[in-house]
């Protein structure tokens, strides 16, 4: 996995390079930036990438299966916004959660169904469903951009939970990462994802249920997005739906791709997500400490993502003879 095609540089895979850069950056920031190495700041870094990392885990599973989920952020923000709206308007907690869970699974199923059974490219399906989810929830189900968490609700309490002075989402991220690691590495369905991502036709020919597995991935991704949304609401005590129009989505792709999960599928794993998240976390934190305005941060992130995609394109080149027609 992750080895570059150049035989002489076999040890230099993308994951290694990114990890090295992250370490170098970390050291540089520790030396150059006052307050960076501070324990609180380190916790803040881990915390800031937790939600990103959780979303990236879901995205990673989809990308490894040769897909992409552009609706993740919309599902994350809008499901929780709807949940909180239901709570605020007096719906019983259990019922409200059941509604939201059903909604999230429905969107995941819809994504999966359209990709797997209608053969529509994942990119268009999820772009459309993301747009739809945002538009529908925003215009029909909630009344304002930001929805607060009701007083004394468990989501609010979740945000205050600490263990060893470390916020709970860090542990959730770690736990999920471990679960995903086990899933991808040691379960049959996890291995199927790699086979289907590496060569869908061959996977189908040897009898792997490629289409149900595809649906599973999108449902999984939607579900992970819901968890990430709950954690976001927990730490901020509200959810702002404007996040859907921000660059968060591209940060998720950035974490996955920069960690070395090839967009052509079949490559990568949880470790790549962790490495990618580490680099992005350090980078974002350092930029914030240096006080680079948010707009410029976006510019820098876009430039990095572009670089990552170019490198990905060079490592996994596409050829006139082997390129799939309509593979855009």
């Amino acid at each position, binding site marked *: 996995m992750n080895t570059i095609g150049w035989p002489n540089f076999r040890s230099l895979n993308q994951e290694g390079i990114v990890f090295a850069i992250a370490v170098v950056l970390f050291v540089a920031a520790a030396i150059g930036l006052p307050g960076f190495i501070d324990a609180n700041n380190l916790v803040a870094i881990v915390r800031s990438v937790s939600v990103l990392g959780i979303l990236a885990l879901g995205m990673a599973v989809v990308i490894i299966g040769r897909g992409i989920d552009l609706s993740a952020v919309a599902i994350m923000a809008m499901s929780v916004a709807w949940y909180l709206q239901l709570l605020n308007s007096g719906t019983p907690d259990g019922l409200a959660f059941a509604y939201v869970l059903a909604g999230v699974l429905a969107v995941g199923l819809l994504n999966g169904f359209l990709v797997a059974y*209608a053969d529509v490219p994942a990119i268009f399906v999820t772009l*459309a*469903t993301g747009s739809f989810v945002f*538009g529908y929830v*925003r*215009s029909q189900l909630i009344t304002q951009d930001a929805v607060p968490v009701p007083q004394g609700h468990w989501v609010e309490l979740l945000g205050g939970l600490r263990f060893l002075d470390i916020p709970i989402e860090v542990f959730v991220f770690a736990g999920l990462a471990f679960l995903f690691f086990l899933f991808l590495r040691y379960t049959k369905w996890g291995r199927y994802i790699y086979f289907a991502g590496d060569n869908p036709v061959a996977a189908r020919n040897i009898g792997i249920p490629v289409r149900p597995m595809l649906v599973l991935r999108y449902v999984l991704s939607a579900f992970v997005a819901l968890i990430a949304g709950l954690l976001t609401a927990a730490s901020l005590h509200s959810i702002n739906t404007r996040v859907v129009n921000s660059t968060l989505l591209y940060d998720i792709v950035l974490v996955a791709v920069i960690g070395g999960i090839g*967009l052509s599928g079949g490559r990568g794993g949880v470790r790549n997500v962790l490495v990618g998240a580490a680099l992005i976390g350090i980078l974002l934190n350092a930029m914030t400490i240096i006080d680079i305005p948010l707009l410029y941060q976006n510019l820098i992130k876009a430039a990095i993502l*572009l670089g990552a995609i170019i490198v990905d394109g060079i490592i996994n080149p596409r050829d006139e003879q082997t390129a799939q027609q309509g593979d855009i």
Partner: protein
Amino acid sequence: MSVRERLHSWRYNLVPDHVVGEILTKRWTDNAIPFLALVVTLATFGSVIPGFFKLTALQESTRQLGEFSMVVTGMTVVMLGGGIDLSVGSIFALSCFSAVYVFFILEQSIWLALAASLTTGLVFGAINGYLVGYLRLRAFLTTLVTFIFGRALFDILVTTYAADVQLSTATSDVLDFIGDSTFWGLSVSVWLAIILAIITHIALTRSRPGWHVLAVGGSRRSAHNAGIRVRRTVFMTYVFSGFCASIGGFLIACRLSGAGPGTGLNLEIMALTAAVVGGVSLGGGRGSVIKGLMGAIIVLTMTNGLIRLGYGTGTNQMVLGIMLAVAVTIDIRWLKNRHKVLNEVYVAPVYLKMGETQSAAPGSGTPYELDNRLSAADHIGLGELEGPEDVILDRDDNLYCGTRHGEIVRFFAPGYVRSEVFAHIGGFPLGLALDKSGNLISCVGAMGLYSVSPEREVKRLSAETSRSWTSIVDDARLRDPNDCDIAPDGRIYFTDSTKRYDAHDWALDSIENRATGRLLVYDPKDGSTKTLLDGYRYTNGVCMAHDGKSLFFAESWACRVHRYWLEGPKAGTAECVIRDMPGYPDNINRASDGNYWMAWLGMRTPSFDLSLRHPDMRKRMTRRLPQDEWLFPNINTGGVVKFNEKGGIVEAMGDLTGGAHPMVTSMREHKGFLFVGGILNNRIGRYKISGADPNWTSPTSYWGAKP
């Protein structure tokens, strides 16, 4: 006839099932869905929103439409080339800003602002093009990233310079004119959009670079292998898209006299939705500028209409999301299944009850009784020939035949061993005839009626007849010209066997059994072609009667021979002279004894006759079974039949061994020999006819002794 059969005959002969398949073959069905959507959208919003079609209201929305449709035109071209450009919103915004910056802050002329705008778009497009075209990155993600990049840049620039723009006092009449005025009732942006659309349409459909774009989009690999510079072509599509978006950006700069954070927001998903809703295919190759424009109108009407109806924030995204998902799914499913559906639906069998026939079995004692005489025929060109459907001999005894490679081959007398390609026409030359001056006239399957002069000059005589008003398929085109013969006055009578199938699919026509065969005449005096008779089940062989006053023609799937009168009291009418034969008749030619030779391409079987009475069964068969397993008429046994002027059968002969001439599609008598051809055969047979006139030749019979 039982009640079931009667119901079947009504159900399958009166309900025009074949229309569905014929409509599906039309290219315009691709446009029908988006067009319908357009009409429905306009009608709905027009009726719901008061004053929707008022000129003042249209004025503002058409301005927006002008800018938007330009962006969509660019997107369409990129998508036709097999890519996608999500950065159009950023290009649009940045170009808008460039114009604003040059005009309001640098206070330069409006033309310089235009130049800045265009440069921005071209440079941005070139970056996209380089990344996607030359570095071959994934179009979607790459342009998504350049979109974020451009957007971030734009946000920075706008926040930095917003105040300066507000304070600027620069004005220009040109700017006001572009932004606010109209020209012949339409705003400048609409005019520009129309001009751009026309130019792009012409370029795509009628110029080499445009064809290259379509070729690359249609099949990148084939385009590459054909020597088209794929990478450069892809590069150019993105540059063009950048160019289009930058004009749009310039126009909005003129209209709003500024740039704000909302400029070009969500434009990419709108443009993408517009293109896809209009019917421009993802993955390239299929679509047109017009479709993109239709989509642009639909999307803009929809989003603007919803805003005017007062729906809240997010409604637009919701509607765009639904439209995009539905349109993409329809597009993908349609593309994938159209051929499947067409293949399944196209064959629409009809009911026919064939009449009782006499047996042709050896020893049955009927006039049709086949024997084994043809198996003794000598062979000519064995293994060299593929598919000599018809054979003919000229005054010098040379032998001509068509092949499935589209050639007319000539075998030299007297040995018929040496051969040459006499002429290459293309198609599949079927029926042959020699005219008075020695030109070889041929019905070329899938092409038309052709003439080859003795100097081998190939000339097309006719490829179409007049179109009937009610037919959905283009029945002016000759699809399966089959056999011809020439009247004493030089007019060429020929058959076109079916309107529904191409020449090589003639067996499918037998399963459908729909009566669409025609008899036509070509007049060499004025070059016109007229349809004389229509509605026969596969018209086939044609032969002038010995007196030249009437002609015989075969109706294959009905196993009948008809006589069409050219002169006399019955002129212009046809009568059936032989009916209910046991074989399917093919070509008919003159015999030396005043009778006529007729080929049988195959024999009727009880099972196929029964299937003709069960169109439902044949329909199921064509839908559910692979073609190899269909029940076809028997074409593995045929024969040659001689009949007289009155339609009485004189004799019949065949090759019961099936070794030499199982299927016969034509035969020609020449100097006491019968030359036998078969469309699926690999040889021409030569059979000595006992008691035949050893000096009789067909050209003499038609045109008299050598002048």
